[in-house]
């Protein structure tokens, strides 16, 4: 296989990995702070994707333009979900949380099926088939834009948690729950806020994802699993870790698909996950104490 095929495939892996990373970022925030096992993560993303498709087909707005409004809608959704439904479950055992979110995921998937029907929906922008040629490298335009947008959103989020007061408060909740209470932080509201932010993140990722893939009601579960794999690999509570995890999984799957049977490429992601869980459970960039 000529070298440019490897180059192309690696590039694809990197770009797609960035978008996966953004999706996982949302989960990292939710899981890392609120400690809820969000098994409806992929389904939330599919809501965002359907919103994008809907707005695109009715108003003809480019997805990247719709990034902010849709992320905002998902923020509200996440906030309401946390405050209304999930809050009492935080102290409950994992299997209860799990069941709650699995039930939620089931409802979302089938509601989407009823509303939008089973056929795949796409967003065909004017630049949907463009590609840039740089020497032997052929870079897909939509993937490039999506990847770039992912980096921007991740940077914004990073800045928020680093420098904004609320961001620091949220980090405090994650680090030391009791301490945060003692200091007088309204933990309940901050949790809801965090869930909202995580949802906004996954919403943004969803908007970008519509540029790359087609939407069907049932794509949620695969992405939920992927998000967990990335978050655990990259490290809980570390945003850079989520992005790095996304990159790692994206590139590994791409190269594995090239070198081995593409239909088995997911095995490598799971193999990496197992190795990380065993030898470095805090993840590549995670901190020691979980």
């Amino acid at each position, binding site marked *: *296989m*000529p070298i440019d*095929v490897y180059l*192309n*495939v690696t590039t*694809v*892996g990197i770009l*797609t990995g960035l978008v996966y990373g953004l999706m996982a970022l949302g989960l990292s925030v939710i899981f890392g702070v609120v400690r809820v096992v969000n098994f409806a993560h992929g389904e939330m993303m599919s809501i965002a994707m359907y919103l994008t498709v809907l707005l695109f087909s009715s108003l003809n707005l480019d997805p990247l333009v719709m990034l902010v409004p849709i992320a905002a809608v998902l923020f509200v959704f996440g906030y309401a979900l946390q405050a209304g439904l999930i809050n009492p479950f935080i102290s409950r055992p994992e299997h209860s949380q799990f069941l709650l979110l699995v039930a939620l995921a089931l409802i979302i998937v*089938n509601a989407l*099926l*009823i*509303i*939008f*029907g*089973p*056929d*795949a929906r*796409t967003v*065909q922008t004017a630049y*949907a*088939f*463009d*590609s840039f040629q740089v020497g032997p490298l*052929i870079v*897909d335009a939509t*993937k490039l834009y999506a990847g770039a947008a992912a980096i921007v959103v991740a940077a914004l989020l990073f800045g928020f948690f680093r420098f904004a007061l609320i961001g620091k408060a949220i980090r405090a909740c994650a680090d030391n729950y009791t301490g945060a209470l003692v200091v007088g932080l309204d933990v309940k509201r901050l949790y809801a806020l965090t869930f909202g932010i995580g949802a906004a993140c996954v919403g943004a990722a969803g908007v970008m994802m519509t540029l*790359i*893939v*087609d939407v*069907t*009601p*049932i*794509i949620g579960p*695969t992405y939920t699993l992927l998000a967990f794999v990335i978050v655990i690999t990259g490290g809980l509570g570390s945003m850079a870790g989520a992005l790095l995890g996304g990159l790692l999984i994206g590139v590994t*799957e*791409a190269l594995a*698909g*090239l070198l081995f*049977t*593409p*239909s088995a*490429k*997911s095995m490598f992601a799971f193999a990496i996950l197992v190795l990380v869980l065993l030898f470095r459970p805090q993840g590549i960039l995670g901190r020691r104490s979980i």
Partner: protein
Amino acid sequence: MPRRIRVSRRHLLASAVAGATSVAAPAILRAQGASSRPPLKVGVLLPRSGFEASIGQDCQRGVDIAPGILKSLNLPELAVMNADTESNVDVARERAEKLINDGAQLLVGAFDSGQSTAIAQVAEQKGIPFVINIAAAPDITEQGYKFVFRNFLTAQMILSSAFENQLELFNLIGAFPKSVVFMHVNDTFGTAMAKGINAVMPKFNMPYKILDEVSYDPTARDLSVEVAKAKGANADALLAVSRLNDAMLITRELVKQRWTPQAVLSMGPGWYEDQYLKTLGKLSSGPISFVPFQDPNKKLTKVLEAALAKAYPGINLSTNHVYTFEALLIAADAYKRAGSGEPKALADAIRTTNITDNVSIGPGIQFNAKGQNDKLKCGTIQNRGGKLVTLAPKEAANAKPEWPMAPYQNRA
């Protein structure tokens, strides 16, 4: 485009009958004599939710337009009982039991081989005839069942017919690809076809060599790596067995990675389906599919087309509708000849079915001792300007082939 949400079966049947009535108005007056018998209770099992929802709901359209057409053919009335298998084997079996419990005298379904196997066991055990509309796993009709019938090609049959058709096509155009790269989806159908190729291809002296085989995950949302690998094989043409979503993904990647194969030879669903044509527009022309299909020159095909256009405007007639409709046609025809709805009589009547005035390509509907219609053939169809034209076999052809494919980059 907002999707019509159906709330009532009765409403649906009513609108379908209304649609077909205007096509067959005079015939209905004649048919009144035949329908003095009680309608035959037919249970239809399809995956209308779950991961096969899209295909199941498409098959359902073939069910919905059937009653009117059957009436116009002077055939007895069917009382259809719809059930959703939820793309799940357990549910399929249970639903089949429930339908039989609720009085179904005949079952039709279920698109998926696994679910069809489960239903076949129930049907055989209860002695209720089961007519399979679409399922390609050969094993189903190898079990010695007396009550299971399949009016569809097995994977082996699809392959043999496809290779035959390809040779016929190459003869017609006087050209052929010297090498192909074989891409297939790694699910039940795709794998059965891939395996079958090794067994079946040597019998046909195909002029091309398979340089590489790229199998991909059915749930893959992004096939850039797979297509890159296929492109890297440097073959003349692309041989494919895909589903609808992968066909669209692959095509997009072909455009983005700037590779237009000499031809896309598909031996499965996807490349000729409505959504493919609509979504990809100008980029959808070119691929040639060797698949079970309707014979455009048959009389009943035109009737079916008209009925579909009336009930579901904008949807082209294709495999899912055709074979599902034919399953109901078989049921009604058998009921007429059996004279009673007694299951054993029905089964015996089905076994002696001989319908030449049907829709699908081939000499007609007959069943061998195993309950399989082994005379079915594939058609060769090509996408052209948002429509489908039939290139072969000769009796069914209505256009000349376009070879090689117009380069994607030149299509505005």
